[in-house]
């Protein structure tokens, strides 16, 4: 079967940079979203989409890769970075009511946004967000959109309308297959994400980004945020920072010192 052009949506999340200390703030114990960037794990999703569309002649051949983000005005930075890397267009659901949404409310809003794009061949996500880290959204989105889920894929091929992925777990390595349209989440083993180059950065300025509100997606403000969420954080406590203990330099007896330490800790 011929490989025709693909219409792909990639979820890109604007998350606090994991290289810095991250904090929960306020009564709702929400993430402090200063110092945020495009989630590193979403770069694998974007790369997976670009690899598929590159192999089909890219944007010139009618392939589309839409970078979709949900979040405050600042989240547009995640879309912009995705356009610089190679996404062909952007969709930003920007609404203050989204703050404090849990996975259920997030997947509800994402499903509405994806439906607004019409027929889509693939929805590709990362294996988790680097902030919430729950890995719930891909499966919930699959359920809400009625798309088969090929999740935690460490490899991905599309031949004709058949999508094949590999999924590795502790007990098994599985080959999983579905017909388009599908939802895929890819792990950090799936590929090597590309970096934006100068040409990409210039080209991004001409790409179209659509910004929509919840109302434009037909969603009430209380369908998301704390009102639309089905979970709540009652309390949060910062763990005391670990401090360095005893550090020794080996002068020939360190292995014995290690055994002494383990014995003193009653670990041997």
């Amino acid at each position: 079967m011929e490989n025709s052009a693909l219409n792909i949506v990639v979820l890109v999340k604007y998350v606090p940079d994991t290289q810095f200390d991250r904090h929960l703030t306020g009564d709702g114990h929400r993430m402090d979203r200063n110092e945020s960037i495009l989630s590193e794990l979403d770069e694998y999703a974007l790369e997976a989409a670009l690899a598929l569309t590159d192999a089909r002649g890219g944007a010139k051949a009618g392939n589309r890769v839409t970078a979709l983000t949900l979040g405050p005005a600042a989240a547009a930075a995640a879309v912009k970075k995705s356009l610089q890397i190679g996404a062909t267009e952007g969709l930003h659901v920007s609404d203050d009511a989204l703050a404090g949404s849990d996975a259920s409310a997030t997947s509800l809003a994402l499903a509405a946004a994806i439906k607004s794009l019409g027929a889509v061949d693939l929805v590709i996500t990362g294996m988790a967000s680097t902030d919430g880290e729950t890995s719930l959204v891909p499966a919930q989105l699959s359920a809400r959109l009625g798309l088969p889920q090929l999740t935690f894929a460490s490899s991905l091929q599309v031949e004709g309308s058949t999508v094949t992925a590999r999924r590795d777990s502790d007990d098994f390595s599985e080959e999983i297959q579905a017909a388009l349209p599908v939802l895929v989440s890819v792990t950090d083993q799936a590929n090597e994400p590309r970096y934006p180059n100068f040409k990409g950065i210039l080209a991004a300025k001409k790409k179209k980004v659509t910004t929509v509100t919840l109302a434009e997606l037909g969603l009430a403000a209380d369908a998301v945020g704390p009102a639309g969420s089905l979970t709540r954080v009652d309390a949060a406590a910062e763990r005391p920072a670990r401090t360095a203990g005893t550090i020794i330099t080996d002068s020939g007896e360190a292995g014995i010192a290690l055994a002494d330490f383990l014995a003193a800790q009653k670990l041997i």
Partner: protein
Amino acid sequence: MGTIVVFIDQVDTPGRLHPTALQLLTLARAAGEPVAVVAGPVGAELAAELGAYGVARILHSTQAELADYLVAPKADLVAQAAASVSATAVLLDNGPQGKEIAARVGVALNAGVVTDAVAVEAVDGALVAQKSVLAGSYTVVARATSAVAVITVKSHSVEAAPAAAAAAPAVESVEVAFAPASLGARVVQRTPRAASGRPELEDARIVVAGGRGVDGDFGPVEELADVLGAAVGASRAATDAGWIAHTAQVGQTGKKVSPQLYVSVGISGAIQQKAGMQTSKVIVAVNKDPESPIFEIADFGIVGDLFKVLPQAVEEIKRRRA
């Protein structure tokens, strides 16, 4: 006391109750009336084992779809069974499949999902979970605000204990009505992984992990692990280099472990790695670079050559035990 469904998978691993399943049953029994929902066959032995943990009612299905398709049919089973017994909570393991079943059950039952719980208790009739977030830098208390709570629980959140009096469970076979969309992602091939004979990373009391510094040779790491009865882990650098399977990766995109003892060998301790192990009780680090960030969080650190320090430690531990 509400009815609490515990999901038990006998499709992928028939005949064997995972230690985590026993822990989930123990939690469910403390918080309500446990009902086991089993994907796959339930023999007399399994029923007796579940009964010993206080399960009076078992719902199960042996429909082929549960094995032939990824995740979604199992979620249909759990959601339909939970609805039929009017469950107030559903408990699952915290592996990738457990989380994904939880995610879909959450959508099906309009229920809140809390993942990565390290403790679960009933407070005024509602289940409240404790979990680590932001790479172990915070501990939060979270709950579902919906009529049904779905919680995925990490290993060792509770010590598994049989019920004071064993129950003789009623075993009911259920016929799941699979949603057409649940039968979209077919498992076309399933290759079992070879068992290492060592404990699983997330279950282990002790983990010995190697990184870039092992330079392709996990021998000394494995020898120390074996003398300690430990699981073997690795940094992303070591798994990316192909020195060890990716399933051994500890870190932000790998396993998150909190053992009694984590021995970090030849691992610098960058954020990616720390995110997976900094909630360990005791951390020991061996690295030849005194500037490695791992020493900032190690309770005991050795600046030295792992190829000398580890074999010496192994010999010494063996000698003391002899």
